[in-house]
């Protein structure tokens, strides 16, 4: 198989391929939770994979940037630290049937952690992972990836992209790494007929047309945030809606603020990297008691400036939102991305 190939696989052959992927590496795919909820998790059988889901409750980042992650270990000799060693996770991972928005989000994390100096804790995991996207033919009610240019189909960024057709899946190979995921199973794949490629274009168009009108209109908000034209009153008002729970940051596929904490044991200890959120009051608190972002409104502003401003888009290669809609579900104070961009657009709560 080669890069940029377009192939097809039948639905009945799919489990054979998935079984092959399982034998080579850890496989992470959408799985049923309780009720109708679905979330990405490690699967142990091809039967565990859910192919008919709208979106995962949580994004991929916890596998590449875990909520609590050992960074280094020190050894103690005669009561004094005597050596420090990094802790790396070099497991091979394949992410299967993940949504285009989540693939787009990983590309943003790649840019942020990959910038000089490279964050090897992240990049080592990332280099050993492969992304098999499942294009969205039925976007969910909170989805707005189309506004963020992050879905519902991907043009790039995937190793493999699957599209569900009538009797099987179109398999687009995007990278060499993607091609290697098919090796050993060549007989399961056939070259894609012209009808399959036509169907993909039609399905992509239909998917885009399913997004409603009242989604996050980024453009106007981007300009206002970039030029610092949103009034302090409006930020203050949105600050009053914020519970400071950090839920939006934890479900967000692109949020990646972290803090560290040390844990000791008998022979030394380890330093953990922990998820943090810029909406927490203590996030910017200094030991002296001084807090440059003491007001909630300032913290809400900082979060959306990081997501929406052109200044950060330049650093990250894209705006820091992929339109997955998870903040719509998570935020109890309605400070989700579509609501915030709508308020910025009309200049009032």
């Amino acid at each position, binding site marked *: 198989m080669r890069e940029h190939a377009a192939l097809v696989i039948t639905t009945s052959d799919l489990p054979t391929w998935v079984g092959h992927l399982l034998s080579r590496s850890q496989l992470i795919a959408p799985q049923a939770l309780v009720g109708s909820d679905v979330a990405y998790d490690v699967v142990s059988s091809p039967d565990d994979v859910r192919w008919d889901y709208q979106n995962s409750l949580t994004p991929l980042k916890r596998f590449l940037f875990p909520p609590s992650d050992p960074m280094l270990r020190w050894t103690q000799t005669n009561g*004094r630290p005597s050596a420090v060693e990094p802790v790396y996770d070099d497991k091979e991972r394949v992410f299967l049937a993940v949504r285009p928005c989540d693939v787009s989000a990983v590309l943003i994390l790649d840019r942020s952690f990959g910038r000089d100096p490279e964050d090897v*804790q992240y990049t080592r995991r990332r280099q050993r992972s492969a992304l098999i996207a499942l294009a969205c033919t039925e976007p969910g009610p909170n989805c707005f990836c189309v506004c963020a240019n992050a879905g519902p189909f991907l043009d790039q960024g995937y190793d493999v992209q699957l599209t569900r057709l009538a009797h099987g899946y179109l398999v687009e190979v995007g990278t060499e790494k993607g091609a290697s995921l098919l090796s050993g199973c060549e007989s399961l794949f056939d070259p894609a007929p012209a009808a399959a490629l036509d169907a993909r274009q039609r399905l992509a168009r239909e998917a885009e047309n399913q997004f409603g009108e009242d989604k996050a209109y980024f453009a106007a908000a981007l300009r206002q945030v970039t030029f610092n034209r949103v009034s302090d009153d409006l930020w203050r008002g949105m600050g009053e809606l914020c519970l400071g729970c950090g839920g939006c940051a934890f479900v967000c596929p692109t949020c990646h*603020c972290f803090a560290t904490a040390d844990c000791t044991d008998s022979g030394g200890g380890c*330093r953990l990297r922990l998820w943090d959120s810029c909406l927490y009051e203590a996030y*910017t608190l*200094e*030991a002296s008691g001084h807090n*440059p*972002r003491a007001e909630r409104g300032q913290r809400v502003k900082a979060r959306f400036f990081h997501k929406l401003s052109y200044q950060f888009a330049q650093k990250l290669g894209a705006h820091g939102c992929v339109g997955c809609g998870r903040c719509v579900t998570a935020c109890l104070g309605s400070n989700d991305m579509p609501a915030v961009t709508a308020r910025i657009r009309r200049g009032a709560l």
Partner: protein
Amino acid sequence: MGNAFLPDLAQIANIRDETRDTKTFALRFLDPARWEAFQYRPGQFAEVSVFGVGEAPFCLASPRDGADAFEITVRAVGAVTEALHALRTGDVVGVRGPLGNGFPFNEVKGKDLLFVAGGIGLPPLRPLIWQVLVEQASFHSIRVLYGARTPSDLVYRDDLERWRGRDDMQLLVTVDVAGEGWTGNVGVVSTLFSKIRIDAPATIAFVCGPPVMIRFVTRDLLNLGLAEESIITTLERHMRCGVGKCNHCLIGDKYVCTDGPVFTYRQIKSMMEPA
């Protein structure tokens, strides 16, 4: 590929009491090769680990000269700084750095240099002052204005004595509240501006201290006619990673740890959040 989060071990070579809550630690890398590579400029900082407690950023407070150790000056105010104060000579800590941009040096040659420090704001300026004094002929004038709350809050008493005795620079010291036996100036540091002649277009001011002091000193310097880009300061934030990844020190889109910590007032004024 190097790991920017991995500290190198260093031993506490010396501890000096500065004030009732502030100490200066001399740190020497266990691996001499690490010291060779640890080339820094004044204004840069390091992340220092007390293993088991955590890590905190400290400015490099001594010049990178012939010594085999560098100094940090630490006020005991939080978990890491209190743990540092509990350590003794010979104890081992972790060091990452040097980090951050550092002060301009060649760019300000030929200028009137005005250092304005408040309290614990002298440590970031100290290595720059010594570096400037080594090449003092390259600068038109060197003046240090230093203010602290009380006489017992003044740090680097040895340095102050040596600077006072030099004729190629001028040192003025003031305290907010005089104690018994204090015969020097009384008042906030900006009251010293009236005691010197400032040639605004030729002056570069390096200002360091608590946020409120920086605000008032900057206002006074602007009123004296200094250009916005001639007022240089270091900003403080809780920089956790020090390498522009964790996002804690962001001011708008500027990382204090990698874009700074040294900024001109002109840069600070254009930031998206109050500095």
